[in-house]
């Protein structure tokens, strides 16, 4: 043991510089894992135990329509019995515009109306350290997010028109309780007093207001109250969310996010591991004579194996520590990078111990797993090597096969551990293996394709190709790593481009790009007139579409019989609330697949046409009867047809349930509209403002803004994948530098012989440039080819959008990869050019 430790220490003293990039390979991956895990854990820690602040209460009763008086009475009775307090809150997407400027444009906002005492937990933080009090909201005060000030060009003290009322901006909200992290937002948050909201006219029929009752419950009564309330609301349009469930949801969400992100880190570590494996193989080759000497003076194979395994362990651990340090540096930069990602929430980012321990463990494990198989070659070094050079081609022996199987199993286990799921872990491991094999095969084929160049008349070109295809060349490993990185980057960039192009194409097509919500029956004429007055010439606005909310509460059919809502709830999504409409004929994106559509005359007998998905999923057929609850009224409608809806063209409306005119007209309902707004931005703003003026409760959603929001999400995803791709390319380049360093001794010797035979430094430099240039072209080509394949497959099968190969982008990817690989390859080989031949030959 003493010998093993002493030798490991001595060897490391001599070879740590050569193995420097060994631990840089590991460090990059470990750094990625530790940083990604720490970020997620920091976010989770910020929220840990603060689930109450997240919902601003112990529990919330939420409903998107006013509760029946008898339910309210029951709630009050339950709360009183439990000794609980409660207050109301309403959330509502609506429009806001400057109150004092006629031309000021309107913006969609997420309004929250609260009562005195809000919040029960957490705190409202206002800009300028202004303390929050409900008095700021009372009498038509409003608190807004800073981005709204910029968007509407208003400031504190200015007026803001919301619905039919004028509010005064009294403060700027920096952070608030009850804001879910990462939730999709359609506009900046504004806070108003609940009593004032009721005077705005925004809570009329069809309003998308989410009614909330925030509860504060003594601990002892909490669980029972929640169980009772849930039982009360089982068959109602309301649900009860407790802070405990929120805590569980958040825990699961974060665990999933953490595991997925860690897999990204693991892919980088595994690439580093491939680099480690490659270095170890070359290292053992270089150490053959020393190993033979040690065997000659009595060392056993097992002792020598232990010497090198100990070295790998120390280097792996050192690399992992370096990775933790890199992660620490990255964490310093995170707050400024992610500042915009969590509006309204303050998070302290720091490395976490669990992330550090995992990172160190993974770094060590990957180092050992990837170096073990090449290290086994130590056993085959024969001391007779010292008497004569002998090159033996060995077939893998039983030990090597068993160890390889164990290593592969270990790696799959590691992936499963990091993914936190056997299925996902196995899929990722399988995917990685398939990609590696595909890249390896592609590398081999490409290499074969360039072999004829080895017969070129050009000395430089001939030798460049020979260098790439010689035994022991690290080409495949570099191709694998650099190719994979450029594949990530080019792939995600072309996918992004295809998606954005597709959105733009759809927007430029002659299709609706503005949506109106919550138009009341008495506003229909005014709204239609306003639209007609503002549209571009030749554009005719389609009529507004009536909509109601309904819930299936029973089905009497041939294959299925659901007596009541409780039975319906057992059928999953059938129990959800649907938006329904009525019209006399089919829309352009619909066709009948069973039964037949009604004649255009209204009928008193309720008839409904159902979408194919509903028919197939819940086995409801033509002739069956569905009972709907429409605003408390039960309507039993006969299914007279099954429709297919082309959802990709559903921006003019798509409905699961379509009623025959004649029944629903009598029920209170609102209207929505789809129109192609003016293409001029000023004209669009004028139309929005005019609509809000004639119908202040109407929300006008601009499709272009939604596209901008989607674009920014796509941009963020692209950025994230590009960062990962860059890290992979970086690992690939590290492997390249390592490969060059490890084989440099041979290259220096060969260059010395060439120089002795008359080759100039320029000629040798040309060989190097061509060699690494070719390597770069192959790696870039593999990346670009794979990226085009990936974009095609995702466009065709996942996104269902037309595929357009982006030749310019792919070519740019190949060029950048080529230049990078060539520059780094030649720079790392500088010594090959500089060393004097005599000194080299003497040393040999």
């Amino acid at each position: 043991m003493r010998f093993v430790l002493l030798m490991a220490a001595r060897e490391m003293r001599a070879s740590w510089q050569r193995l420097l990039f060994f631990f840089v390979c590991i460090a990059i991956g470990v750094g990625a894992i530790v940083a990604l895990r720490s970020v997620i854990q920091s976010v989770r820690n910020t929220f840990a135990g603060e689930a109450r602040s997240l919902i601003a209460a112990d529990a919330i009763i939420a409903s998107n329509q006013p509760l029946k008086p008898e339910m309210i009475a029951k709630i009050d009775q339950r709360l009183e019995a439990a000794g609980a307090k409660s207050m109301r809150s309403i959330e509502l997407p609506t429009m806001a515009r400057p109150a004092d400027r006629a031309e000021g444009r309107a913006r969609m906002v997420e309004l929250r109306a609260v009562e005195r005492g809000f919040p029960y937990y957490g705190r409202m933080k206002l800009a300028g350290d202004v303390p929050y009090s409900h008095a700021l909201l009372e009498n038509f005060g409003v608190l807004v997010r800073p981005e709204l000030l910029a968007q509407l060009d208003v400031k504190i003290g200015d007026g803001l028109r919301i619905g039919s009322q004028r509010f005064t901006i009294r403060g700027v909200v920096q952070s608030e309780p009850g804001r879910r992290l990462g939730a999709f937002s359609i506009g900046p948050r504004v806070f108003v007093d609940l009593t004032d909201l009721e005077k705005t006219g925004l809570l009329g029929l069809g309003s998308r207001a989410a009614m909330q009752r925030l509860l504060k419950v003594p601990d002892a009564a909490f669980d029972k109250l929640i169980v009772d309330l849930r039982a009360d609301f089982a068959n109602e349009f309301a649900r009860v969310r407790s802070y405990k469930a929120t805590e569980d949801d958040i825990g699961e969400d974060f665990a999933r996010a953490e595991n997925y992100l860690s897999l990204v880190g693991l892919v980088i570590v595994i690439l580093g591991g491939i680099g480690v494996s490659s270095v170890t193989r070359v290292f053992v080759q270089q150490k053959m004579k020393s190993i033979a000497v040690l065997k000659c003076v009595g060392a056993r194979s097992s002792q020598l194996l232990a010497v090198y395994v100990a070295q790998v362990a120390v280097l792996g651990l050192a690399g992992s520590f370096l990775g933790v340090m890199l992660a620490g540096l990255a964490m310093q930069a995170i707050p400024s990078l992610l500042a915009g990602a969590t509006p309204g929430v303050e998070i302290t980012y720091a490395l976490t111990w669990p992330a550090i321990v995992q990172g160190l463990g993974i770094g060590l494990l990957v180092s050992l797993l990837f170096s073990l198989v090449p290290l086994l070659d130590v056993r085959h070094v024969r001391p007779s090597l010292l008497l004569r050079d002998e090159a033996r081609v060995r077939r893998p022996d039983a030990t090597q096969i068993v160890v390889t199987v164990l290593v592969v199993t270990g790696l799959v286990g590691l992936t499963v551990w990091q993914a936190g799921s056997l299925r996902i872990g196995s899929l990722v491991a399988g995917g990685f293996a398939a990609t590696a094999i595909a890249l390896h095969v592609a590398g081999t084929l490409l290499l074969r394709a360039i072999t004829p160049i080895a017969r070129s008349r050009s000395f430089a070109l001939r030798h460049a190709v020979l260098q790439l295809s010689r035994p022991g060349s690290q080409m495949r490993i570099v191709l694998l790593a650099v190719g994979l990185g450029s594949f990530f980057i080019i792939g995600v960039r072309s996918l992004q481009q295809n998606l954005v192009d597709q959105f733009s194409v759809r927007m430029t097509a002659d299709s609706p790009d503005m949506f109106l919500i919550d138009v009341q029956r008495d506003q229909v004429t005014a709204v239609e007139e306003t639209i007609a007055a503002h549209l571009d010439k030749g554009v005719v606005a389609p009529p507004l579409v009536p909509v109601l909310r309904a819930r299936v509460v029973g089905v009497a059919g041939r294959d299925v019989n659901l007596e009541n809502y409780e039975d319906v709830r057992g059928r999953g999504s059938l129990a959800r609330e649907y938006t329904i409409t009525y019209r006399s004929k089919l829309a352009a994106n619909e066709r009948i697949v069973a039964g037949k559509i009604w004649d255009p005359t209204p009928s008193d007998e309720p008839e409904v046409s159902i979408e194919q998905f509903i028919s197939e999923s819940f086995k409801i057929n033509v002739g069956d009867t569905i009972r709907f609850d429409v605003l408390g009224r039960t309507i039993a409608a006969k299914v007279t047809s099954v429709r297919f809806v082309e959802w990709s063209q559903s921006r003019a409306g798509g409905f699961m349930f379509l009623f025959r005119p004649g029944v629903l007209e009598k029920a209170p309902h609102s209207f929505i509209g789809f129109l192609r707004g003016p293409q001029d931005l000023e004209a669009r703003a004028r139309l929005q403002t005019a609509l809000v003026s004639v119908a202040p409760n109407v929300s006008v959603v601009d499709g272009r803004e939604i596209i901008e929001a989607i674009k920014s999400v796509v941009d963020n995803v692209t950025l994230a994948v590009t960062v990962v791709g860059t890290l992979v390319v970086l690992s690939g380049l590290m492997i390249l530098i390592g490969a060059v360093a490890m084989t440099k001794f041979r290259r220096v010797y060969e260059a010395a012989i060439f120089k002795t035979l008359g080759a100039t430094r320029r000629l040798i430099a040309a060989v190097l440039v061509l060699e690494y240039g070719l390597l770069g072209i192959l790696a870039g080509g593999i990346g670009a080819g794979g990226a085009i394949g990936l974009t095609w497959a995702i466009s065709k099968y996942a996104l269902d959008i037309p595929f357009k190969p982006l030749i310019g982008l792919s070519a740019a990817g190949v060029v950048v990869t080529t230049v990078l690989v060539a520059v780094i390859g030649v720079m790392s080989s500088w010594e090959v050019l500089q060393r004097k031949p005599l000194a080299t030959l003497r040393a040999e």
Partner: protein
Amino acid sequence: MIQLRGVSKTVMSGGQPLTILHPLDLDVASGRCLAIIGPSGSGKSTLLGLIAGLDAASTGTIAIGGTDITRLDEDALARLRGEKIGFVFQFFHLVPSLTAIENIQVPMEIAGRRDATARAQALLDEVGLHDRGHHYPSQLSGGEQQRIAIARALANDPPLILADEPTGNLDSSNGRHVLELLLHVRRSRGVTLVLVTHDPSVAAVADDRLVLRDGKTVPGTSGEASEVPGTLTRS
């Protein structure tokens, strides 16, 4: 000390078996010095490698100090080399990543000796390189490297020293010093010494000479008839 019976070595060359050492018997008594001589490719180094257990014989038995090494596995052979055999190579074969003194310590450390450092220093003194212990092989001359190699060969006090062309890579002055050192060691410690050499002047100092040509033993050109018929010549 050394006893070979019917030892041969056949290797595969271009898919064909090639005998590089034909069956050979050899006895070397304890304390004797044997020189194996012959032209390049005659099988000298192969024979030395077989005696050291560095390579496996195709036929025959090899006994070192009474132990049949042809029956030993790799690990047992390594242990035997560590305890009983010291090796000196033409190209020194010091471990480049270790200092001179560490190179000498290694065999003792493998054998688990506690006094490795003190003894390595004593051996450094014995080979006249008292103050060069902390130099790396690349910082030493060829002669110095070979003296370190001799000190390493002596580390575990082996009864047998095998030297493959120990002066073959040195100038005549350094070669003479190294040879004197080997002979001194042999005299002072009473070890058995087997030398492979091209150099007649080196062979001349040996007690016995074995001449090889094309893998076969041939009668010597000088000295008395060998103890083993037809193979050895004695000064």
